[in-house]
């Protein structure tokens, strides 16, 4: 440790210097006092009584005391000046930081403050990365001298003082005479010393700061301590700078993510929109400046209640997040595009800029809804196709009846006899014609596209309709149908044609499952179970293995060679739209039993 040893030697020689000064002050005061005394005595000769000797001694001591007093006074002034300097330097560094300059400008600015405001001849500063390699550096007051050092630092070779400082030795003091490897001071810089300190905060090392000052200050503890504090402050500054940089990077990254998100993003604070990303603007179109979501402008009237309730629950903090899909009409655009849109929307309660905020992200599902609608219609058609033979049968038979009645009437007319039967025949023919009309109407109602219309209906009605549509087909296939529909069931809010579609699907599925079964039985039951209206469709087929009971509802899952697998998934979707459930269990015959549970509407008083 050559530098440390030199330090000790320096402190020792300093003490010797002080002792010499003290002796000189003592002797000077003694000589001064004795001369004064001799002037006063006026000639009695060199006669020194004890009194005179004591006086001389006190005089000497007094001299020493005055020297100390003067020294202290000078030192405290210097300390005050130094402190003021440090405070000013640190203050200027913080001001510099507040100016949000680039890192390089900031580093050079720090060096300049140290040289201009502080009493340092030169200052340089180097930042290192986590691997200890040079990241960047700055200097003031060194000029050409610094190039050499910088080059070697770029090559990974740091001056000895820098290396020692970085390895955590605390403050390192070095002078040109120390001949330390790669010293920044040149031999011309005699009379100067370097103070080098690590710039760090906790365990994070940012780099080092080195200044050169007059050699007279080399051993001044106060001076060293002050420099240490400046280094600490610069370390803190670098930490803040890093935080600021990271925060800016993170914010940029998030902003980029949000701005380029496929989802529309909206921030609502105190019921006012404070941010909309481009996708949100694309979906919703322009919104009036005074838009407040509590107005819910443009939301489809049927969905307004749902949207308002969902928003209310999140904004009041009743739930952390809520999902809702709804229809709305975008505000008028220049191109007059007013087509209705469907969005799926998630509203979550978050804290943004220290305040409670509702974050709304939404995706445009208009296309999905359109496709869903097409699939629904197609599924209806294929359900209808599967029972088409039965429907044809239902039309053909009464039509044959009408033909026969007409032939009979023709004969009666021709012969002019048996006229009394005519009235009865006409009534029967009319009944047959009415039957055909009812079948056709049911088919048309069933195939009619459109949004689900939930109205209060007795569940048995769509169940009966579906049963009558496929009764012939079932009978034709030799399937025994057991029907047990509970009377006086509470009514449910449902779309009868959709429930009919589900029933038709379940019934034709059951019939297909029985195609190769020995016993062909299907039972359809409705009942009130635990406040829910339950429809059960059971068959005597092979059933659904336990592991596949959820899978059968997956879209495109099918065991039938000609099926699309859409049927059951759509059935479940329809039942979910009714806030009900559709599950599959094992029937009493060991086959499958599909169970639909629907919410019963509470009976109105009166």
């Amino acid at each position, binding site marked *: 440790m050559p530098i440390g040893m030199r330090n000790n030697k320096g402190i020792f020689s300093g003490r010797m210097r002080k002792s010499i000064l003290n002796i000189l002050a003592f002797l000077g005061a003694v000589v001064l006092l004795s001369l004064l005394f001799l002037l006063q005595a006026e000639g009695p000769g060199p006669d020194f009584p004890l009194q005179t000797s004591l006086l001389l001694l006190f005089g000497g001591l007094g001299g020493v005391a005055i020297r100390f007093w003067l020294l202290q006074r000078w030192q405290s002034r210097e300390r005050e000046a130094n402190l003021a300097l440090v405070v000013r330097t640190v203050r200027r560094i913080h001001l510099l930081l507040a100016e949000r300059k680039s890192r390089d400008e900031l580093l050079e600015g720090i060096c300049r403050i140290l040289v201009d405001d502080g009493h340092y001849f030169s200052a340089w500063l180097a930042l290192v990365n986590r691997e200890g390699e040079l990241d960047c550096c700055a200097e003031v007051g060194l000029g050409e001298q610094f190039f050499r050092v910088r080059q070697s630092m770029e090559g990974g070779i740091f001056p000895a003082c820098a290396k020692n400082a970085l390895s955590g030795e605390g403050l390192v003091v070095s002078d040109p005479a120390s001949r330390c490897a790669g010293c920044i001071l040149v031999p011309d810089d005699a009379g100067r010393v370097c103070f080098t300190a690590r710039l760090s905060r906790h365990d994070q090392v940012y780099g080092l700061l080195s200044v050169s000052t007059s050699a007279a200050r080399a051993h001044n503890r106060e001076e060293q301590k002050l420099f240490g504090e400046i280094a600490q402050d610069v370390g803190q500054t670098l930490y803040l700078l890093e935080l600021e940089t990271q925060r800016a990077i993170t914010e940029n990254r998030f902003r980029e993510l949000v701005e380029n998100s496929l989802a529309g993003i909206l921030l609502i604070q105190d019921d006012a929109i404070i941010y909309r990303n481009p996708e949100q603007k694309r979906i919703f179109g322009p919104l009036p400046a005074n838009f407040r979501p509590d107005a819910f402008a443009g939301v489809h009237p049927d969905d307004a209640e749902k949207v308002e309730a969902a928003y209310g629950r999140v904004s009041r903090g009743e739930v952390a997040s809520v999902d809702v899909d709804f229809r709305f009409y975008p505000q008028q655009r220049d191109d007059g595009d007013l087509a209705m849109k469907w969005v799926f929307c998630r509203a979550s309660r978050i804290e943004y800029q220290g305040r409670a905020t509702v974050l709304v992200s939404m995706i445009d599902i208009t296309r999905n809804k359109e496709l869903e609608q097409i699939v629904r219609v197609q599924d209806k058609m294929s359900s209808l196709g599967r029972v088409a033979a039965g429907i044809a049968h239902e039309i053909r*038979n009464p039509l044959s009846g009408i*033909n*026969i*009645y007409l032939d009979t009437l023709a*004969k009666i007319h021709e012969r002019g006899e*048996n006229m009394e039967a005519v009235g009865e025949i006409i009534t*029967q023919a009319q009944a047959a014609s009415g039957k055909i009309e009812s079948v056709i109407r049911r088919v048309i109602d069933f195939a009619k596209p459109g949004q689900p219309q939930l109205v209060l209906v007795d569940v048995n009605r769509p169940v009966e309709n579906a049963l009558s549509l496929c009764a012939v087909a079932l009978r034709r296939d030799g399937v025994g149908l057991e029907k047990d529909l509970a009377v006086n069931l509470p009514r449910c809010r449902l779309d009868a044609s959709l429930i009919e579609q589900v029933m038709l699907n379940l019934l034709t599925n059951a019939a297909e499952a029985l195609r190769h079964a020995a016993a062909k039985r299907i039972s359809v039951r409705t009942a009130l179970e635990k406040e829910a209206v339950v429809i059960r469709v059971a068959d005597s087929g092979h059933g659904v293995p336990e592991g596949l009971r959820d899978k059968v509802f997956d879209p495109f899952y099918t065991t039938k060679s000609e099926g699309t697998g859409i049927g059951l998934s759509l059935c479940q979707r329809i039942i979910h739209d009714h806030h009900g459930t559709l599950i599959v269990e094992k029937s009493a015959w060991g086959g499958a039993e599909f169970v639909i549970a629907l919410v019963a509407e509470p009976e109105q008083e009166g």
Partner: protein
Amino acid sequence: MDLFARLQGMNVLLVEDDQWIRDSLRRFFANENCALMAVETGEDALEIIKDNNCDIIITDYRLPGMDGLAFLKRAQSLNAGVKKILITAYMTEAVISEAFRLGVHEFIEKPFSTEDLEEALSRILEKKIINNGLGPVKTF
């Protein structure tokens, strides 16, 4: 000779699950002063064949329980000389060839009119003599 005049002494049995057709044909036959026994299922029809000497059976192919062909097979074994007319909406090759094997005499396709039925009945009555010479059609 008028078709219905010849039918007056005969037992005609209709097996048809649809009430519209049963009712209208019964009414049609009544208007011609002929009796038509109409039942819903093959099982009911077999009961009648056991007790009565049926001359002509008109049956639908699609029936609840046993189908028209299965019924005709059983009816054939009970009454070898009975005339058979099959009504069907589904004229598939398999049904037709099976029907021919059973010696079904006539087919009527749904929806049908009385003319179709009258023509079929007329042809059967004309063929009566020839068929009598051949004896019952062998069944399997």
